[in-house]
């Protein structure tokens, strides 16, 4: 398995996690995201949590359908990962922190 991070710049990652209050999957997504970031992006990431239960209108811009959803705003291109990030491999691929095998 290739464990070499793809990203090797010092750019700050801007991540935005859309949640629905404290549903188990929202909590799990946040927990998984911080774990991954600490491991791969320690010190150079910023997570913004947007609770759509509080403000559903914010779903429109990014056309969020399912919750939780993670958006990588920076580095470009924008990436969208749906789900609680419990499948770490898939999350890493989605964030382009690892190349998809095959």
């Amino acid at each position: 398995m290739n464990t070499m991070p793809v990203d090797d710049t010092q750019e700050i990652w801007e991540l935005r996690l859309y949640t629905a209050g404290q549903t188990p999957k929202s909590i799990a997504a946040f927990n998984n995201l911080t774990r991954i970031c600490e491991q791969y992006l320690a010190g150079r990431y910023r997570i913004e949590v947007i609770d759509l239960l509080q403000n559903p209108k914010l779903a429109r811009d990014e056309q969020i359908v399912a919750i939780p959803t993670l958006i990588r705003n920076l580095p470009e291109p924008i990436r969208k990962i749906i789900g609680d990030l419990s499948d770490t491999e898939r999350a890493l691929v989605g964030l382009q922190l690892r190349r998809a095998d095959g």
Partner: protein
Amino acid sequence: MAPAPNPEDLKSENDELRRRLEEAESIVSAIRKHEVDAFVVQHPEGESDVLVLDGEERPYRLMIERMQQGAAVIGAEGSIVYVNGRLSEMLEAPAATLLGARFSKCVAAAHRDGFEDLFRRVPRGDSEIEVTLVRANGTDFPALLNLTPMFNTDGVQSLMVTDLTQQKRHAQEREHLVREQAARAAAEQVAEVLRTADRRKDEFLAMLGHELRNPLAPMRNALQILNLIGSRELAARQTREMMGRQLEGLIRLVDDLLDVGRVTQGKIELQAERTDLRHIVTRALESARTTIDERGHTVELRMAESPLLIEGDIVRLTQVVLNLLNNAAKFTPPGGRIQVSAEADDAAPRALIRIRDNGIGIEPDMLGRVFDLFTQADRSTGRVEGGLGIGLTLARRLVEMHDGTLDAASAGAGQGSEFTLRLPLSEHAIEAPQAHAADSAVSKGSVPAMRIMVVDDNQDAAASLTMLLRLFGHDVREAYDGQTALTLLRDFVPDLLLLDIGLPGMNGYEVARQVRAVPALRNIRLVALSGYGSEEDRRTSVAAGFDAHFVKPVEFSSIQSLIAST
């Protein structure tokens, strides 16, 4: 016919479609794997809403939002995943700024390591820790944290926060209360000890006064005898005069000592009558004359021309003025000047007596204390005459009993002192007062001889009085106890019976009652000689059958006056 599509456009359209498909597939995949539990739904009007799949949890969520404890979910990395409204209130920070932050940042630095240790151990069951939490504005409060690992989540823990501010305050108040009660109890104990000590001191002073006074009566009598029959030589006369002065000083001192004890205990009763304050000043000056002359002082007297009528106890007020005069004489170096004035204060209906000297004066820091019991200014250098420091205390208390005031003033050491006595003037100043200066000097042989019996267990007192009375030509018998006296009375019926109250065995009251029970003894004049002179003592004497009540040591002139009136 549509134009042939541009290959570039086709490519980009294809990419977009592919991206959308991927997203759709990933949504479906996430749903199938149950990685999502909420959806954004679009209403026809364009409003969007969030549909949460776990709808049955809503009531619990509501309760958690509303409860009085803070609640949070902390991710495995220690960041806040969720906070309820109460915790956000406690920390005075909006949920948005708390989410994602490390909870340990809210824990005071001193407790941070303890909290993180506990958190990292991922306890199996509940664990709790008391810490100080820091609000967004930097203030802090005590809190109890409960950590519980959350079911089915890796390292995620739920946190309950209880604000302990109230609890601590109550505990503190309780502790404060307990401590206060203990302090009060201790103070009460100390006060009781002091009260007991104070009472013992008063009792001791009273006893001391009596013990000192008892020998004074025979000494006074003996001196009178020597005056009548002693040597006429100059040296002998001067010695007797000196002894007389010293004895009178000693008697005054003992009287003051007894009086100050009585005043303190509220046992002095004033014999108030209307009198002219000018006579009191004159009487006091006469009594103080010896001391003043001895020290070579000159006295300047300024007296009001009209009477200064007051309601007061002549004996006590004379005592006050005498104390002030003696004080002035005592604390002024020989050859000093003492100014005495007695006037009406025009501003108020009251009399003013001023006694000013040019003596050693009073230091400013002592001014407030000169009236305190046993206080004497400048003991080290100014000890001209000594004394017990009770005269001024007694004087002020006696004046206060007359609704008056007594104040001291001095410009400082060596600047002399001035004492000002103020007494309310009597409201009905109509009649001119009677002069009270009764002539106390009754000369030898001016009264007819009488039959007299003296009963006193102080044999010296009885013997000296007997001898003195015999020198005046009276027929005198003496006895030292009541039973002997009653036996003597069968053969010797006196005109006057001077009877001590504090006799051993049968006391003076009992002797008086028995005397009064015998018809043959009915005409005897019964006089009580007592160490006590309160109203109650006098009433008891009258009830027992006494005709008069004298307080010891009795001045011989009083007995002479009594004989003259019998």
